[in-house]
């Protein structure tokens, strides 16, 4: 019996473990080559070309994907409707393929159906149909780009989102600063204030219905709340002194901001339902730029209580204050990533400005962008990109000063300027819209 057992063990071991084990440590991190064919359509509109163009632009701008030139595609659009010829797409190096179809329904809506294929696994990864009014075609394109991004990276996208910012026109002496909003790719620009009084530091509410910002309306800086539908603005109740640097809590029920009274700035919270104001810091130093953690339990802010502006984290009720930055220079405008893993900030050192990142405990500080003036980081809804504004210096004749919004990947690669017709500063990225 024992011998039989031993024989069985020998058989089991030799058959089960007869496989070669190889460890592959490390990988490439290049943009993934993908193909996005024009969408088939019976419609007289140009949407079969325009929607894929927006999807290509979105994905290519993320720098996680490289779009293979449509001129190189071997398989025709007509034959794609039945089944992709995977060998044809492998031949041009595509890892994934997106194709779709647009139809018009009787109620005037358009229906956009698309499919995402894994070219090497020979299998469909996703397929969806979306319906909307024809004028919302850009939104449909952004939603499809988000779907593809999420399916291929495992993380939420950020393409169907907006950026609020300050549009700047006029020369340096008579600068007009208007609150404006646009799609994350710069399209659909819309002004929200008339520019009679200077607006600054806009921040979206989590449900996007309101924007809180600072305005010099009435002569002194005050926190205002703007309804994004009616465009009606109101000053918050009971704010004596200067109030600035406002930001919503993640549940949208509270605001945190700085208020300066008798030369001392402290951080306050404001309950939007009860209009109750609570002082969170009581230090003689200047405490400002508060930003909630995504779970709403902590607040990061900057303070000069150590002699220089440094970053601190405290509980949402103002207790348990801990310093987290210890580097050289001064730190300002901290903002917590929506995925909780980083705090972005502005750093001023030796006359230069930097955009940096650190872990919420202050470790792993990295500076990822710099310039004559770079400031005001804001996170994309998926916590992957940071938008900030970059100002160039004036020339000797007082001309040439420009302010533009830039984006950069948290890896520190791919800084890009967001194309705007006018100068733009103080960006605030919205949550994902869908």
């Amino acid at each position, binding site marked *: 019996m024992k011998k039989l057992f031993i024989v069985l063990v020998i058989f089991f071991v030799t058959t089960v473990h007869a496989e070669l*084990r190889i460890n592959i440590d490390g990988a490439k991190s290049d943009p993934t080559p993908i193909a996005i064919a024009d969408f088939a359509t019976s419609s007289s509109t140009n949407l079969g070309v325009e929607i894929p163009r927006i999807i290509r632009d979105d994905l290519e701008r993320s720098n996680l994907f490289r779009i293979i030139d449509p001129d190189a595609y071997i398989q025709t659009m007509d034959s794609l409707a039945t089944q992709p010829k995977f060998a044809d797409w492998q031949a041009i190096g595509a890892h994934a393929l997106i194709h779709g179809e647009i139809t018009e329904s009787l109620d005037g809506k358009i229906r956009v159906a698309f499919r995402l294929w894994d070219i090497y696994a020979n299998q469909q990864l996703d397929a969806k149909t979306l319906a909307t009014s024809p004028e919302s075609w850009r939104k449909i394109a952004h939603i499809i780009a988000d779907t593809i991004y999420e399916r291929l990276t495992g993380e939420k996208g950020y393409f169907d989102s907006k950026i609020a910012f300050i549009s700047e026109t006029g020369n340096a002496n008579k600068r007009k600063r208007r609150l404006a909003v646009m799609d994350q790719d710069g399209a659909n620009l819309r002004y929200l204030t008339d520019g009679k009084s200077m607006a600054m530091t806009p921040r979206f509410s989590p449900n996007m219905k309101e924007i809180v910002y600072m305005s010099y309306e009435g002569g002194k800086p005050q926190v205002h709340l703007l309804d994004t539908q009616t465009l009606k603005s109101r000053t918050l109740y009971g704010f004596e002194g200067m109030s600035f640097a406002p930001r919503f809590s993640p549940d949208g029920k509270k605001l945190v901001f700085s208020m300066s009274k008798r030369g001392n700035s402290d951080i306050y919270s404001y309950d939007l339902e009860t209009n109750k104001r609570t002082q969170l810091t009581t230090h003689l130093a200047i405490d400002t730029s508060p930003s909630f953690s995504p779970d709403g339990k902590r607040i990061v802010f900057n303070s000069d209580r150590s002699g220089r502006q440094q970053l601190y984290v405290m509980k949402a009720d103002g207790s348990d204050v801990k310093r987290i930055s210890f580097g050289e220079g001064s730190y300002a405008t901290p903002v917590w990533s929506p995925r909780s893993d980083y705090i972005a900030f502005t750093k001023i050192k030796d006359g230069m400005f930097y955009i940096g990142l650190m872990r919420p405990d202050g470790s792993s500080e990295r500076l990822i962008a*710099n310039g004559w003036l770079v400031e005001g980081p804001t996170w994309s809804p998926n916590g992957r990109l940071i938008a900030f504004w970059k100002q160039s210096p004036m020339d000797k004749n007082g001309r040439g000063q420009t302010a533009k919004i830039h984006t950069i990947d948290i890896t520190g690669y791919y800084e890009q300027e967001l194309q705007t017709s006018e100068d733009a500063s103080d960006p605030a990225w919205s949550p994902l819209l869908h």
Partner: protein
Amino acid sequence: MQRKAFLFSLGLHAVVIGLMFADFHFTREYTKAPPAVLMVDLTKVKIADKTNLPQKAVVKKEQPKVEPKKEEPKPAPKVDKPKQEVKKEEPKPEPKPAPVPKDAVAVQQKKDEKKKEPAKPEPKPKPKKPEYNLKSLLASVEKVRKEAPAQQQPEEATADALDNGFEGRVDKILTISDKDFIASKLRDCWNIDGGAQDIDEIIVEVRVLVNKDGSVRDVKILNNMNLPAFKSLSESARRAVYICANKGDESPFKILSDNYADHYSDWKELHLNFNPMNANVF
């Protein structure tokens, strides 16, 4: 007197010199003759990456953490390049060139009142010392004691010996350089997002069925992790196998069919562990 002393000294020297020539063989032990040198012709030895080590370690532990860092240069966060020219051309802006009321206004007002705190960094919490709990030590000793006799049972000992002898037999046939060749080819075919969240925690285990000609018959992802990036990383690992297999003569599996055709049963099933270690660009 002097003569007597001289003779005494001479005699003493003679005794000392005499002792130097004497052999007190009875005071030392005879040592054994050194063993004969065993000559091994190294050209006839096939080098495998392991000798007789049992392959019981968990795969994750086997991977050395000292993988050379990615060659890709850091994004050179321009930080290192101080823009001297810019600063020279343009007079340095006021505290902040743009209207930054948030801090700048207040900082100016408060400069005199600043109450300095020591800028000393708060001491980091010391890492906890491992507790040398006698109770746990005893428990573990007891555990060892309990296990020890079991290992000496003849059946299990035989099974262990067999296990060590047969498991990973292919590993011993395949040379280190061939194994490295396959791994490096697959690494080049594996393209991932280096900025994905928690990427360092992910390992993708893949089983590949290979045909005798080196073509790939099937690829199966064996594990699952509850991390957002796992799905895309595991799919990219599967894609990497297919991409590599499609490279014709450059396929990493071609080396198996070319050089190890006689051992097909040993490599028809491959177990690949994809670990993006050091692939993140932070």
